[in-house]
């Protein structure tokens, strides 16, 4: 080491710790600024809009109306009390219910299927690298493209799925999968699970590869059968990775928009929170009302994630149990 000057002379006599913090701050600053501009500011604007009567053709002329977009009590001259606002809007609650149903079912299916795929990929076999790459294809296709592709495959007149099911005798007449209220949600779920299972599989695989091989060997010598090994050893050990994967997927699923917008536009059976708030914001010219729904969507997400981390004791610090 060639220490030229004593360190004390520099940085106005800051301690090493302070110098480190200062450097850290300057490294973090660009990120913090970018995050503020693209995340915090739009969010704050949305919350603000939700408390005004802003409309799309007069974005800056909105007046403060408090919580009226959320809930407003009207007392008519004849004495009847009426409630208005998002919180008593059946269309909104239908969207909330659709979103939750979609999220829970899709994430559960994706986790189970993803784990199975990961277990297969974790085994040693020839061409494993190729299979690992191939399985990612659904995930790599842009959602709009895959949604359009599936829309054609699910088409009631010309769709290949109807044709195949008909020829196999599984159905007696063609089904309008995406248009029928009864089947629209299944269609959306199917496409989403097809698309996202590879992502889950990859995250599960990363978790599986963290489990040291000799633990399995110790279990082999202990004479524990493979099913028990999975539930008693593998699953507890990959639980932290699995919990993080599930929360990533859950956040994505709760905000789902593109797939539904393309595959089943305007179907009350699949309309989600994101879809309905966009509808109000842009199409129905109820900008403030849509903002209120966006704000609620954010609040629901925040509550859900907090609960999940707290109840699931998810370790997001990355330190993990060794």
């Amino acid at each position, binding site marked *: 080491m060639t220490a030229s000057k004593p360190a004390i002379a520099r940085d106005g006599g800051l301690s090493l710790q302070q110098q480190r913090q200062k450097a850290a701050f300057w490294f973090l600053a660009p990120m913090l600024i970018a995050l503020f501009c693209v995340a915090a500011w739009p969010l704050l604007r949305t919350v603000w809009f939700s408390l005004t009567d802003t409309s799309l053709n007069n974005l800056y002329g909105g007046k403060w109306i408090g919580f009226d977009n959320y809930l407003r009590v009207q007392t008519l001259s004849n004495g009847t009390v009426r409630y208005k606002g998002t919180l008593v809007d059946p269309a909104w609650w239908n969207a909330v219910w659709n979103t939750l149903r979609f999220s829970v079912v899709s994430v559960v299916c994706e986790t189970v299927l993803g784990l199975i795929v990961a277990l297969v990929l974790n085994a040693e076999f020839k061409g494993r690298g190729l299979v690992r790459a191939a399985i990612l294809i659904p995930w790599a296709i842009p959602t709009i493209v895959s949604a359009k592709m599936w829309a054609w495959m699910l088409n009631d007149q010309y769709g290949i799925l109807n044709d195949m099911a008909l020829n196999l005798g599984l159905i007696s007449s063609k089904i309008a999968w995406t248009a029928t209220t009864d089947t629209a949600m299944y269609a959306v779920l199917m496409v989403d699970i097809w698309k996202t299972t590879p992502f889950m599989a990859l995250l599960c695989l990363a978790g599986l590869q963290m489990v040291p091989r000799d633990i399995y060997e*110790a279990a082999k*010598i*202990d004479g524990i059968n493979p099913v028990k090994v999975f539930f008693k050893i593998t699953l507890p050990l990959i639980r932290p990775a699995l919990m993080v994967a599930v929360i990533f997927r859950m956040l994505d699923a709760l905000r789902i928009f593109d797939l539904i917008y393309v595959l089943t536009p305007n179907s009350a059976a699949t309309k989600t929170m994101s879809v309905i708030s966009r509808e109000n914001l842009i199409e129905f010219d109820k900008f403030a009302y849509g903002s209120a729904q966006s704000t609620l969507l954010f609040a629901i997400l925040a509550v859900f994630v907090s609960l999940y981390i707290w109840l699931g004791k998810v370790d997001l610090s990355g330190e993990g149990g060794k």
Partner: protein
Amino acid sequence: MAKIELKNVKKSYGAVDVIKGIDLTIEKGEFMVFVGPSGCGKSTLLRLISGLEEISSGDMLFDSERVNNVLPSQRGIAMVFQSYALYPHMSVYDNMAFGMKLAKASPEAMKKRVLEAAKLLQIDHLLERLPKQLSGGQRQRVAIGRAIVRDPRVFLFDEPLSNLDAALRVQTRLEIAKLHHSMSDVTMIYVTHDQVEAMTLADRIAVLRDGRLEQVGTPAELYERPNSIFVAGFIGSPKMNFLTGKFAADHGCTTLGIRSEHIDVVTGGMWTGQIVHAEDLGSDNYLFVEVGSDEPLIVRQEGKLTMKVGDTVSLSPKDGQLHRFDQNGKPIR
């Protein structure tokens, strides 16, 4: 409790032969150490005995019963891994009891066995802890405890001390030796690359090299009558001195071996040279003497030393302590 016989055991991975035909009998209650440089196949051989790997050809017998196709859990073995391989999410107690629990043992019997093993290893105060809350030495003891609870016929150790620091290694080595004495009818097989561990623990040592047995014998046999240059150089610390060229030709061999403690500093000895380096270990001194061969001769001198680096000394081997090897590395006796 088991006599283990290996008959022409071979193991290959695809085109690569790792174990190239080994015949070995390990007696009941014996402490056998497999030793050799890395890549010699010693760990693979242990895994073949454990059943974690299948042998490619040959026969393996436990108490005269062929176990080639018997599952690891059915062989009556217990294994201690280099990395301990404890279940990280289970307490020490559960780690030790896991096998029994899933084998549907009665809770009382299980508790008794685990507590006995824990007492023996002095880890009975740690039973509630998780592996991550233990030190390396304690983890290793839990791993050994887990093996004891299995009540095995054969105990397998795969480099169990290599993750411990020097002081702990010596202490744990002692405990393994004690364990062997207290379980004297259990056959133990121990893999290490450390010849000191091999020498101190083993009843018999099997030196492996390149997938073959180089020599099998008691530590003293290997030390005093090595069967090849390889064994002579591998067993003993510091390494045996090897002299070639005219030094060897004078004694009618290709390579001449002499251990450091078998060289005396004399006047008018066989070899003369300058001391180029000296190591003082307190009890012993090691002199590195440049006598004109490929490497300096290492000479052990007890007690305090009157010579210093730069001095010229004359050396002579002790009677009957020269090891002569032919051009194939085999001893000439």
